[in-house]
Every structure is written in C-alpha cells, then in structure tokens.
C-alpha cells in the first residue's frame, strides 16, 4: 500500500528532470522530498499526482497501477505552492468543490465543509473570498479543499514556501499534528532541510533528477550516503581532507598525537551554541560548534593556540567525500 514509484524518468526537452527514480512511501507515513531547486522533487510530486506524465516507469497508489489513470481519477489531494485558490468562489465553495463534482447531497456537503473548516480553524471565514484571506489562511483553505474528498494520498508542493517565518513554524507543527490525527499518506516537497527534519518521518533527498538517499531524518544526518547529502543536510566543517559535523570536533588545549594544531580566530556566542572559528596550521579554515558551558571551561580567546581532534570517526571517508 502507500505509494510505489518505479523507474520513473522524465525529460523536459533536453533537461532531465527525473532519471530512473524508484521510491517506496509507506501507507500512512509523512515523507519529505528534499533537494535544491531544479532537483526534480516537484516533478516527482506532480508525476505521482498525474499532473505530469512520466516518459517511462510506473506509479502505484494503494496497490493500483495509476500510471495511465488521469489526475482526476487518482484520488490524490494536491496542495499547490501558491495554493491555487478558486478566486471567484467563497471559502465554503472552494472546499465544497470536489464534493459538488462528485454530486454529493447538499446536507452532506454542508456537514463535511463545516467539519473541515473547523479542522483548519477557518470556521468564521466561510463567506470570505480568497483575496480576503492571509497567506496562512489561504494555505489552510487549500488543505481543507484537498482533504474534502478523502484522498488516498495528500501531496503538498512547497507548502510553507510562500509564508513568513513565524507562520511557517506554526504551520509545520500543525501539519505534523494534523497528519497524526488523519493518518493519510502524505508527501511534501521542500528545499529547506530544517523543515524536512522537523516535519517528516522519512526524507528523500533528490538532486539532478536522482535520489541521493532515503531515510529517517537522523539517519541522513548521522550516516549520509555521500558528500552531497552530508552538505545538504546539516552543517559541515573541513578538517584536513575530510568533512565532519562541526560539533564532532574536540578542542584540546594541549597537543596530542593525531591532533591538528590551529589558532582561534573568532569566538561567536549565539546563546546556547558557541561557534569557534579556527585556522589550522595547514589546510583550510574551519569551525567548531560547542556549547556555552564547554566554551567557558576552555576559556577560549582570539589568537589562542589549540589542537583539533575528531570526536568520533568521520561520517564520510575521504574517498567518498572526494
């Protein structure tokens, strides 16, 4: 069950949007498609929805091969990046649209619309037009509209992309909560790794139309499959030939075999986190992420001589990093 994508390829002219992509989305899970823009994540979402036809490969939704099924019969809910509100309809009519197309009874439609508007906290906005709503409200309306027809899967294209930072944080938590209540298989596209880590159970990293890695947020962070994933998810710091997480570097005040000598350049206090920028004797500049308490203990000063040592084995061997 869930969604199974097999060997999907898609070109737009000469541009390869997706190249032999295969993916398993477990029933009822919450998955993020993460990657830089142009990486193919939106195209993959649109292929799953049936809004884009793959050149080759298959899409199976809930056990049914839907590759040749038009979007309107796939039973997917799609929330567009800019929400695509029906501007000439009220909030109520927007949400009721799918139900009216399905010729449901009036009373049933009214009941379902009320229920959904309560779910997305828009009860008082029934008779407003989309132009009278804020960005966050429009997004929630689009979500209610997509959920009204009880889709098998819910697909969201950059759901938080067009919102300002505070509304964004709120909606992330809310989406997660909504998913926990509804248990509908959900896939969303984002280019923000923090957002993917915070909201998703499973992250699919896409780059240049290929899947780089699939895994739980923590797996991607701790065991990135390659250099790209390592750099795309979480911060990195160079040490000699290798890349490490900046909190995986220990600062020593006395030399030790295998440690790299360096000079402290800046100490930046960012609240709980302290960022120490250092210049190794050879190799490029790097930085260490440490805590306020540890920094206080070390009594670091600018210009001070220190030694750097990896706190644990590097997540990526130099060969893979190159």
């Amino acid at each position, binding site marked *: 069950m869930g969604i199974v994508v097999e060997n999907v390829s898609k070109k737009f002219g000469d541009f390869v949007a997706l190249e032999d992509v295969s993916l398993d989305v477990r029933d009822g899970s919450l998955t993020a498609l993460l990657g830089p823009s142009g990486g193919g994540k939106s195209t993959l979402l649109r292929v799953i929805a049936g*809004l884009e036809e793959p050149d080759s490969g298959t899409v199976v939704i809930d056990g049914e091969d839907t590759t040749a099924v038009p979007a*309107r019969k796939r039973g997917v809910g799609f929330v567009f990046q800019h929400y695509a509100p*029906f*501007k*000439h309809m009220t909030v109520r009519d927007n949400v009721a649209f799918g139900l009216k197309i*399905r010729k449901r009874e009036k009373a049933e439609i009214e009941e379902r619309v009320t229920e959904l508007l309560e779910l997305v906290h828009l009860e008082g906005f029934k008779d407003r037009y989309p132009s009278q709503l804020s960005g966050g409200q429009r997004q929630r309306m*689009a979500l209610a509209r997509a959920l009204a027809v009880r889709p098998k899967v819910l697909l969201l294209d950059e759901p938080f992309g067009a919102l300002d930072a505070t509304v964004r944080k709120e909606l992330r938590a809310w989406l997660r909560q909504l998913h926990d209540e509804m248990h509908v298989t959900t896939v969303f596209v984002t280019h923000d790794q923090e957002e993917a880590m915070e909201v998703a159970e499973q992250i699919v990293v896409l780059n240049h139309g290929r899947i780089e890695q699939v895994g739980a947020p923590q797996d991607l962070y701790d065991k990135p499959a390659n250099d790209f994933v390592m750099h795309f998810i979480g911060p990195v710091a160079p040490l000699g030939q290798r890349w490490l997480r900046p909190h995986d570097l220990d600062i020593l005040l006395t030399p030790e075999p295998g440690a790299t000598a360096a000079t402290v350049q800046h100490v930046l206090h960012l609240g709980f986190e302290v960022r120490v920028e250092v210049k190794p004797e050879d190799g490029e500049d790097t930085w260490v992420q440490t805590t306020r308490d540890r920094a206080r203990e070390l009594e670091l000063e600018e210009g001070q001589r220190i030694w750097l040592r990896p706190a644990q084995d590097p997540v990526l061997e130099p060969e893979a990093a190159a």
Partner: protein
Amino acid sequence: MRSRLALRSVAIGYLALLLAFPVGLVFFRAFEDGVAAFWDSLTTADAQHAFWLTIEMVAIAVPLNTVFGVLCALVLVRQRFRGKALLNAAIDLPFAVSPVVIGLALILVYGRNGWIGDWLIENGIRVIFSTPGMILATIFVSLPFVVREVVPVLREIGTEQEQAAETLGASPFQTFFRITLPAIRWGVAYGVVLTTARALGEFGAVSIVSGKLSGQTETLTLLVENRFQRFDLVGAYAASVVLAILALLTLLSMNLLRPKEGR
C-alpha cells in the same frame, strides 16, 4: 498643479472638439425639422428593415465570434505548436486590412465566378448581395476583439486553478465551465461589447458585399449613407442617432455589468 490642469484641458478639449461636438451636432440636426419629422423618417419600411437587419447581423456575428474567440484564445495561450505565431498574426488581420479589401476578398470567394461562388449559386445559395455575405463580412471585421481581450486574462490566471480542479475530480468540461470561464468572464464581456459595437457600425466590407438594395440588404449604416446621398439629411441624421444610441447602450451595459472591484 498648473501643468496637470493643462494636461487635463488638452485631453478633454481634444475629445470635445473631435468627438463630442460632431456627434452632438448630429443629435441636434436630427431634430431640426421637429420630433415628428425625426419619427417619420425612422418608421419608414426601409428604416425598419435596416434596423432589424442590423440587429440580426449582430445577433449572429457576436455569439459566433464569442465562442470562436474564447476557443482561439485558449489555443493561443495553452498550446504550443508550429505555426502558432502565424495564427496569432492572422487573428489581427481584420484590424490590419481595410474593410473594403475584406469585402472584395469575400466577393472573390463567394461571388459569381468566385472560388466556390458558382457552386453555391447553382445550389440556390446566394451569399454575395444577400444577408449571408453581409454576416460573413461582419464576422470577419469583428473577429479579433474577443480573442484579444481574453488572451491576456488567460495568461494572467495561469493553469494552477485548472489543475487544482482536475486533482479534485473535475473533467475538462467541468473545469472549463466552473473554473476557466468564470475567471475570464470580464475579458469575455468586454470583448463582446467591442465586437457588438464594431458589428453595429461596420460599413466598408458590408457595403461592398451587400449590393445596397433598399429594404433588402441595407443595414443602418448603409441607410445613413443612402439617405445622405439623396440629400435626405434629417433622415440620415435620424438613422445616425439610432446607431449612436445602440452603441452607447452597448458600452453602458458593460459598465453596469462590471463588478465594483473592477477588472
């Protein structure tokens, strides 16, 4: 402040001198011999016929051009194909080519010795010097308005709303009537108004293909010319007043239809 006032005076003065004054004078002269003379000249058999013929042409040309115009705009905005630039240019042809040339072109095709004219005449269908030809001419000259009004609106609304409707289960037919058409309705309405105004006032092309038979193929514009040439000035002015009123009503209906939030 002074320069803005000057600018406004120029705009209003220009309109007054070149538009309002001459048209106003037509109204004035129409009633020169009294209301009775005005009324008499409008109730002759020829005038009545001309009025209804004009209405008939508008009633046929405008719906046809509206449907065709919306379809054509959809093709131009939503599809990519070879020769699209050519189609786009061809739509503007009626704007670019003089109506007289359009009239002559229609005679070449449908007239005696014309491309398909002989075949039509043998089968008892008269196009030239008859109503069908005049309707063809009217359709031709008023064709671009709906297309040109709808294309930019279609571009502006994009395809996302339509795709959203699709994912919600709407068929292409339902999507068009429930999403696309309501979204472009003001563009269509404005196009219809302009088409109507053009169809009402067309003279050149219709004049050539009509044969100008009084009481048969004479529209209001042709009636005005006919009366003017026979020195029936009050009659000519009276018919002109009717044309002007029809045009004003068309424009006014647009302003009444238009929602307050505007386009």
